[in-house]
């Protein structure tokens, strides 16, 4: 099991939520004080480096036009971390390539960070949440197709070493691609993809990339991981899916007492509670398939905006499996229950800072996790483990 400290570098100093329509896309940036923002960057970087000291890896992501994540150019932050950190793996999850006009530029950025960090890059790619559409002025229709063309092209950029090649695809066109530098890691840095759909997960599995999913709880995560394992097997990668191919992101707070853990968990909920986004930003036309929009119109739960609609209480989130919080023993048992339910994963993405969770409290949880929970997780879920093994065995036994 590998664990990652993930911070969205949020800017929490906002007026009351009823004074604005949306925390994303349209929130005026006059509400952002750059001096406070600079102090926050310093602090969040310190927390990543403390995580590294404790043996936890580093993860970041990218969002645009939002106070929830003031990291609109994640490769820049990653470049800084590449120089400030020494040993941690550096996961960007990820590059929103369906919203970027030049996949070749993304390949260059990632290759450069891989070299700067002496081969510590883990390169993630995301389709991007729906509220990224408007900031990128990106067409919400056919995003998935753009995403995969871009990703395939980026991998080719990293692995082609004999001078210029051309790409005349459906969405992207280049006559002479020949990136400098090329990545250190061979044949290329590990690729991660996040998705919440079973179709997407099967595709990620077929490619053998690492599949990550965020706050999808028990049953949805199981469906996604099942689809990944099926995609992996159907593509002829063998029966055994290594556990390190699957990643789950949850809100996690570990305290030295139940009371302290509870207080930390309450503050982490800012992630969910603060995500005020109106429907026209949360579900632009074409972002989800027509059939899903029909279900939504009939009152179905919106998986896409689950981020904003999940139980916004600690007890609700714990029950849903979107949060693991408590003393070390409690958190360990919550993670085991969840991991075993979904067939096992080898990457735990810790959403360990949100809103008004102050520096000391953030660091307390990082340390408690790293010292009291992480060693046991590594024992329980060694990297050699096979995901879905129990599940496969049960299915075989049932004939």
């Amino acid at each position, binding site marked *: 099991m590998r664990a990652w400290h993930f911070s969205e570098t949020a800017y929490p100093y906002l007026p009351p939520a009823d004074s604005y329509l949306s925390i994303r896309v349209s929130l005026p940036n006059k509400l952002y004080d750059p001096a406070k923002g600079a102090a926050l960057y310093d602090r969040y970087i310190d927390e990543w480096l403390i995580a590294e000291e404790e043996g936890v890896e580093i993860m970041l992501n990218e969002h645009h036009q939002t106070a929830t994540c003031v990291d609109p150019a994640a490769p820049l932050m990653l470049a800084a971390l590449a120089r400030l950190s020494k040993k941690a793996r550096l996961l960007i999850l990820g590059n929103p390539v369906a919203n970027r006009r030049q996949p070749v530029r993304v390949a260059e950025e990632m290759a450069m960070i891989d070299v700067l960090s002496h081969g510590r890059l883990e390169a993630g790619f995301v389709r991007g949440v729906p509220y990224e559409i408007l900031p990128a002025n990106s067409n919400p229709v056919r995003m998935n197709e753009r995403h995969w063309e871009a990703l395939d092209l980026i991998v080719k950029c990293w692995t082609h070493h004999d001078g210029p090649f051309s790409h005349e695809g459906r969405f992207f066109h280049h006559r002479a691609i020949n990136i400098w530098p090329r990545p250190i890691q061979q044949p290329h840095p590990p690729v991660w993809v996040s998705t919440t759909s079973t179709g997407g997960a099967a595709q990620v599995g077929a490619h053998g990339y690492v599949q990550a999913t965020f706050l999808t709880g028990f049953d949805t995560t199981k469906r996604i991981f099942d689809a990944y394992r099926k995609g992996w097997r159907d593509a002829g990668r063998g029966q055994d899916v290594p556990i390190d191919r699957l990643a789950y992101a949850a809100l996690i707070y570990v305290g030295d007492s139940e009371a302290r853990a509870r207080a930390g968990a309450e503050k982490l909920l800012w992630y969910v509670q603060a995500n005020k986004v109106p429907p026209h930003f949360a579900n632009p*036309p074409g972002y989800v398939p027509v059939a899903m929009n029909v279900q939504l119109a009939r009152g179905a739960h919106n998986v896409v905006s689950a981020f904003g609609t999940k139980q916004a209480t600690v007890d609700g989130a714990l029950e849903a499996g979107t949060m693991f919080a408590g003393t070390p023993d409690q958190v360990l048992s919550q993670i085991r229950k969840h991991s075993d339910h979904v067939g096992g994963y080898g990457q735990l993405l810790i959403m360990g800072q949100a809103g008004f969770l102050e520096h000391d409290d953030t660091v307390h949880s990082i340390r408690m996790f790293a010292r009291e929970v992480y060693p046991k997780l590594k024992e329980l879920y060694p990297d050699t483990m096979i995901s879905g093994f129990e599940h496969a065995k049960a299915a075989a036994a049932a004939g």
Partner: protein
Amino acid sequence: MNTTIMKIAGIDLEVLDSGNENAAKSKPLLFLHSGMGNDPWQSFAGELAKQRRVIAPSHPGFGQSSLPEWLDCVDDIAYLHLELLDRLGVEQVDMVACSIGGWIGAEMASKAPQRFRRVVLIGPVGVKLGSADKLDIPDIFAMPQTDADKLIYKDPEKLLPDFSKLSEAELATIFRARETLALLVWEPWMHNTKLKHRLHRVIAPAMFVRGGSDGLVSANYLEGYAKLLPNARTTTISGAGHLPHLEQPQALTSAINEFLEK
């Protein structure tokens, strides 16, 4: 009226054709619908068909028409509908076209001016006239649906269907239309930067129509658009928003018939 599926450029194109019954009276009329998936335009086309042959395709990605992977802009549809006229053996038509249909129609008339005798564009989009720092057409996808409805309809409550009573198939048609509309108009928003440099080619006398309460196509926009054609005039239908063929069908039909019969 008969709806058939025609295979054109690999696309299954749904075409409503009222047939040749009234052919002797006047030119056939090509009706190009708006971007609304729940737009009951067929009844309006039926009104027009009382006087003449009406040919009304569903644009790709709307109604029963398929949407191929390669198709992603209004220009593609303009060529497709020109080929439809070829396939039907129709040399020259009158055109009535609404909203994004008006954009498609303007593209067609700029490409093949001789194919059109008279052109009526109702609340057409498709050109950029104003300054770079202000959208000519408000961004209906970046506002609450209730706000968009107020721009589209003079009286939303009267015209909007009860969505809870629609069948799944009807809902699917609406959402599919919305998705196709987004695909076509997203960037540049609601226009083709080239179109305004081509419209001088149009030969047909044109009438530009807007509902007096249209919140999407302003009076200034309509005037400016009409001036790009050599021979165009404008008229306003009061008591209607962006879709006067739904809110004031009789007044619009009279205006159209008067213009076409001249």
